[in-house]
């Protein structure tokens, strides 16, 4: 059951994306027109969050609670690495 929860979490983590699991996102934001960038970063990535809240949490709530600490580490790493990558941008 725990592995199923991890599989579902992995599926939605890629959509979010967690720890820049989609490296293209950073490259894309460099050159894309503003509407496209806005759509990608402002709308599409939130779909992963919605899926997590709508599907993963109600079905695998107990299992997700078991891996709370690694998830916290991943979340903090995502925040810090995202800010770091943004700070390194020149444009």
């Amino acid at each position, binding site marked *: *059951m725990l592995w199923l929860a991890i*599989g579902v979490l992995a*599926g939605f983590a890629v*959509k979010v994306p967690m720890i820049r699991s989609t490296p293209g996102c950073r490259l894309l934001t460099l*050159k894309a027109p503003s*509407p496209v960038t806005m*759509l990608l970063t402002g709308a599409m990535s939130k779909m992963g969050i919605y899926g997590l809240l709508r599907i993963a949490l109600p079905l695998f709530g107990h299992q997700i609670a078991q891996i709370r600490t690694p998830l916290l580490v991943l979340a903090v790493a995502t925040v810090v690495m995202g800010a770091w990558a943004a700070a390194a941008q020149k444009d």
Partner: protein
Amino acid sequence: MPHTASIISRALFCAGVDAGIRTLRILHGTEFLPLVSLLGTEPDSRLFLIKLWGGTRRGPAATQFFIYTMAGSAALLVAFLAVFLATGSMDFPHLTLLASTGELEQLVTAHLGQ
């Protein structure tokens, strides 16, 4: 050429808004098959965007993006297939009810082990 690029970007933006609305409708529903088909096809639009407007290394980035998203979707599909094999249901409200009573975990463990 800039005019063409502007038209393409506007068309892609409209297509993206439409895809977003469809995503919300599917995620709000209770059926499983539309969700899986959506998660399987949704990365394709972003793949084209990376190929078109990516940075200097957009080719490898697009390939990496495709592999990661497909691996994630495959993991999601396998997990939900396992749930379906154990419970015989793909109705989200029903599965949520089973999970809240602890019955889902018992069914999955009985059918698939730990």
